């Protein structure tokens, strides 16, 4: 069986030998012959082509369709690159709403994540490891779904109608799940000697954590929270697509109505907002480090 497989393997290599030319020998002045190794890039290219063909079959991707409608792209670009600046009075409040959603959601999520991360860190909570482990599994389950899914579920089941609130809650859930993970992983790597020293003076675990561990992890905690805020702003812009408030609501409407000038204005302002918040967060994070 194994021999047959090997035979098949060598025959495939022989087959490729025929279609892929061997690299040419290089002869140096003193007659030394250098044999460059066979490059793998040819095999990789063939494999890639097979994969691409296979997946485009599944996704019913047709190049012809793209070519047929190619002029639409020029039309779209032509309009979207000439933003309708008079539309700003509608766009700016919605962008601010998006930022508020992202900010509040990040804040609440970050505040919730710290105590939970403390309780599930394996090096601190040695007695209830299985509780920690099950919370960790739950957190990774929550992280499996994108923010958009939570927004849709909450809208459908719990709070229909109130977009921005649903958006904020979705951001909170997402931030909580990702930040708790990053925090407990950080806590599990830190040196707990000071924590143990303070615990030995007859102090509760919570107080020992606050006095000994918190000063140590605070810069990292702020930095991670800011980074989440960064991500959340970008994610929140599409929350409106499912009706969860923010700029996504009107972005969806303008694109559906083919008001590309207005969509261009939205993208323009979102672009500026995201870039400036990113720069600010980067600056603060550098100062914290």
């Amino acid at each position, binding site marked *: 069986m194994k021999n047959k497989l090997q035979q098949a393997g060598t025959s495939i290599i022989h087959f490729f030998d025929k279609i892929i030319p061997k690299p040419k020998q290089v002869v140096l002045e003193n007659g030394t012959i250098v044999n460059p190794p066979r490059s793998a890039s040819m095999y990789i290219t063939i494999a890639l082509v097979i994969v691409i063909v296979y997946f485009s079959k599944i996704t019913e991707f047709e190049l012809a369709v793209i070519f047929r409608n190619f002029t639409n792209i020029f039309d779209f670009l032509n309009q979207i690159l000439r933003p309708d600046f008079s539309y700003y009075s509608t766009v700016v409040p919605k962008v601010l709403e998006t930022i508020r959603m992202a900010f509040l959601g990040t804040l609440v999520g970050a505040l919730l994540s710290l105590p939970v991360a403390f309780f599930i860190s394996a090096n601190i909570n040695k007695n209830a490891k299985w509780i920690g482990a099950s919370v960790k599994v739950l957190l990774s389950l929550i992280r499996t779904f994108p923010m958009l899914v939570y927004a849709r579920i909450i809208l459908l089941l719990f709070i229909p109608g109130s977009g921005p609130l649903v958006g904020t809650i979705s951001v909170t859930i997402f931030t909580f799940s990702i930040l708790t993970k990053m925090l407990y992983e950080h806590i599990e790597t830190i040196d707990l000697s000071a924590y143990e*020293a303070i615990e030995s003076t007859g102090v509760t675990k919570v107080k020992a954590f606050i006095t000994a561990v918190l000063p140590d992890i605070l810069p990292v905690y702020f930095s991670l929270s800011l980074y989440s805020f960064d991500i959340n702003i970008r994610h929140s812009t599409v929350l409106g697509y499912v009706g969860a408030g923010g700029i996504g609501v009107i972005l969806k409407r303008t694109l559906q109505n083919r008001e590309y000038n207005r969509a261009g204005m939205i993208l323009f302002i979102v672009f500026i907002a995201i870039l400036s918040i990113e720069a600010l967060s980067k600056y603060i994070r550098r100062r914290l480090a």
Partner: protein
Amino acid sequence: MSINFKKVGKTYDNGTVALIDVSTVIEQGEFVTIIGLSGAGKSTLLKCINKIENVTYGDLYVNDILTNNLAGKDLRTFRRKIGMVFQSFNLISKTTVLRNVLTSRVADMPLWKTFLGIYSKEDKLIALEALNKVGILEKAYTRADQLSGGQQQRVALARTVAQEPNVILADEPVASLDPITAKQVMDDFKRINIEDNITVIANMHHVDLALQYATRVIGIRGGKIVFDGPVEKVDDDVLTYVYGRKLTAADNIG
């Protein structure tokens, strides 16, 4: 505060036997050093006193209170009167010396004050007095990680003094310090022992230092107490028995 071991034994979860039938009484105000090879059970003996480790069998009384089953709030109240100093100092490196010393005052503070780091004037005074006692008051507002090893151990000692304990347990307090600094730190221990009548129980690797500062020596070998008596009674035969071989001048590092 008297500490009374009655036939105490300790076996770790991994099967290591650390203490076997240990019986001894330590009275308030003594300066006891525990000597013995690495792994003989010195640290375990110390850690059983403030219940960082729990005894496997036997009874351990502190102040006539059986400590075996202390837990929760009772355990915390009990631990407040027992200070501990560690070989690696165990300071919070990213904060000031004063704040490190103040952490020993946290036990009696409400949680929200702990969270906001608000310490009372009295607590600050106690902390500064403790720093003055070990001679590094001028470093009060320096970050802990900017100090030398000897200075850090003094901060750790000040932290323990500010806890106002009856007993200080010191686990290899000078093992990571140079000989001169080690002597200075031991002088601090001695001064606190005499001036404040605080019991000091210290594990020591340096036999010469151990004999120089202690009033009483406990020798441990293979988890058993093989010598327990005043420092004057420690001679070459005792040391040979505790360490399993003769100690020479070359073994003195202090």
